[in-house]
């Protein structure tokens, strides 16, 4: 078992798609929560295999996309300081702030580095005791344990020149916010498999009950996604609303308990602004008071930076599934991956970038016959 090719098998994909076609009797909107799932759906053309009744609504689950502009501007301000080594995951470098991005800061002489693990940033801080090392800790529950671990290690080893600029967001409050929107067209959710590998899915029964909406824990390979969609459709057609796990090889109901304990120690819940969507109550994590000295926002006094979004970017509506990326006037014209207006055009997991990169705006005709 190599856990890869098996889940990209063409004939099995066709079988699952046929089963979905047979089961469907009327229109359903299914939201894949995670940007990684959006990317996989568009890259593999999974939506092209689905019957017209099924609409995939792309959810707010791209960490790069939902990080508020204000937080990017704070990152830019911190990264511009001469004493700072600013570390980030690669995606964040090209996300536009109000005036520039982290690449520009680097071009102007700022010390901005891409790291693959926040723990590398702690090591960097130990090696550079005369500098301030800041890690941009963003993302969902998936990336949070490593960030929490970095803070914990820094505290244990007294690495006081390390700090975290935190902008963590949480999936369950986002699902609740989407369902509470008066314009909501979502009938079922594919929950993000990797988030559930950390958090399990014990958080979901109350949501299913409150909103009467099926939630299927789903992976990222083509067959994972098709199976998740199939299970969601079968529930919808049967009038059921249950939590189902279609990603059993990775996810258990309880999730990763040690990671959850670590998260509860290092972080505390708080209201959090989502880029393009607005503030969602109790939808994010910030450092708990016990670890306040590692909070970069406090250390560098950037709390009073307040930013306003470009009025032309409709990423908020894209992130709530209200419009498709190419329905935005700026899409592909004034807004491209080279010169993005908003974050959804930057990250490979952003819905706008996925649509742009895989050509969902150009008429590709008669491909299959050639």
């Amino acid at each position, binding site marked *: 078992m*190599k856990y*890869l090719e098996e889940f*990209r*098998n*063409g004939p099995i*994909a*066709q079988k699952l798609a046929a089963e979905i076609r047979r089961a469907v009797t009327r229109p359903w909107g299914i939201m894949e929560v995670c940007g*990684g799932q959006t990317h996989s759906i*568009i*890259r*593999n*053309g*999974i*939506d*092209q*295999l689905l019957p017209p009744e099924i609409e995939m609504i792309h959810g707010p689950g791209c*960490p*790069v996309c939902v990080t508020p502009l204000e937080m990017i501007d704070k990152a830019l301000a911190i990264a511009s300081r001469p004493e700072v080594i600013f570390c980030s*995951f*690669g*995606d*964040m*470098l*090209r996300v536009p702030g109000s005036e520039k991005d982290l690449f520009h800061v680097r071009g102007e002489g700022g010390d901005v580095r*891409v790291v*693959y693990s926040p723990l590398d940033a702690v090591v960097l801080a130990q090696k550079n005791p005369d500098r301030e090392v800041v890690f941009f800790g*963003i*993302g*969902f529950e*998936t*990336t949070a344990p490593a960030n929490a671990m970095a803070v914990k290690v820094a505290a244990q080893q007294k690495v006081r020149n390390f700090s975290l600029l935190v902008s963590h967001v949480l999936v369950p409050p986002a699902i609740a916010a989407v369902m509470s929107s008066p314009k909501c067209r979502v009938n079922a959710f594919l929950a993000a498999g*990797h988030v559930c590998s950390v958090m399990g899915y014990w958080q979901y029964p109350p949501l299913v009950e409150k909103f009467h909406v099926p939630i299927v824990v789903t992976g990222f390979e*083509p*067959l994972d996604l*098709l199976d998740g969609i199939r299970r969601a459709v079968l529930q919808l057609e049967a009038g059921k609303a249950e939590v189902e796990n279609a990603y059993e090889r990775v996810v258990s109901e309880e999730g990763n308990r040690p990671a959850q304990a670590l998260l509860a120690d290092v972080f505390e819940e708080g209201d959090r602004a989502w880029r393009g969507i607005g503030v969602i109550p109790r939808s994010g994590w910030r450092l708990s008071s016990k670890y306040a000295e590692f909070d970069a926002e406090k250390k560098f006094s950037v709390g009073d930076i307040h930013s306003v979004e470009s009025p032309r970017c409709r990423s908020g509506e894209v992130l709530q599934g209200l419009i498709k990326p190419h329905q935005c006037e700026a899409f592909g014209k004034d807004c*491209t*991956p*080279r010169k993005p207006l908003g974050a959804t055009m930057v*990250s*490979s*997991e952003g819905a706008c970038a996925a649509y*742009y*990169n*895989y*050509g*969902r705006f*150009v008429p*590709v*005709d*008669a*491909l*299959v016959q*050639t």
Partner: protein
Amino acid sequence: MSAPPNFDNWTCPLPLRDYPNIVLGHGSGGKLSSELIEHLFMPALGNPTLASLRDSAVIDAGSGRLAFTTDSFVVRPLFFPGGCIGDLAVYGTINDLAMSGAKPLCLSAAFILEEGLPTATLARIVEALANAARAAGVPIVTGDTKVVEKGHGDGCYINTSGIGTIADGVDFAPDKARPGDRVLVSGAMGDHGMAVLSVREGLEFDSPITSDTAPLHELVQALVAAKVDVRVLRDPTRGGLASSLNEIAAASRVGILLDEGKIPIHSAVRSAGDLLGLDPLFVANEGKLVAIVAPEHGDKALEVLRGHPLGREAALIGSVTANNQGLVAARTTIGGTRVVPMLTGEQLPRIC
């Protein structure tokens, strides 16, 4: 392919011992420069043309058309699994010549060294460069060395230029693809870029990924000798296969449709790509070519490529279409379709 240079018995020649590291004087044109040439470059690269130490090499090029190309090499790290900047600098330029159907005649090599570079490191690089040139049968006939102050370079940059001759009747060009033509690659995609990246980022895999750096001129000459009707040849280096094909589709005003499942990619490269969020179709190759051949010559081209050690994993991966001009599209393994775009800027490793 040449074996990696063996330095077990290599000793730094006497006059250089006083300088374990490169100093600015090595680029001054004075005594230190001469010593570097005499004791480091000449022993490794020596050939009659270079030995004449003229201001320019004098070459007998015969008659007919010449191909002329240049390329600069700035790879970091200098040494990576499967190669180093030295062999890369030789093969990269040979491959640029080969893609226009030329038989490489000779190369130049110019070094920009950073003050403080260990002389032994330079010797290893030059030895690898010399071995690569010997293995490919293409002499380095002229060269230059400059030294920049510490902090103004990345240890060692190399520029190589090359001249080759093109036989009558051979005329490959990016605007010659026609609807119905077949698209082939000579082997698995993405090895070089992923090998360099995994070293740079300190990633380790169960089966190590090694660079595919290799000279392709003999593989190309095999296609020419077999009278395969080749329309376009490219070596998909920076930007990978996707960028090369997009350039061809634009230049020829045609569409290209790939069968994604037929594109050879080593499983370690695929896994590394999945892990880092990088698509192997956009990752650099240094020993692979993409060929567009006449419709009826697809199978023959495949046979010729597979018959050569550098083309054993060659595959037919798609065809040229009249519709979708300027676009590269792929049929996905599960039966969907997507556009394969040109790379925008650098590929950024993703978050999760």
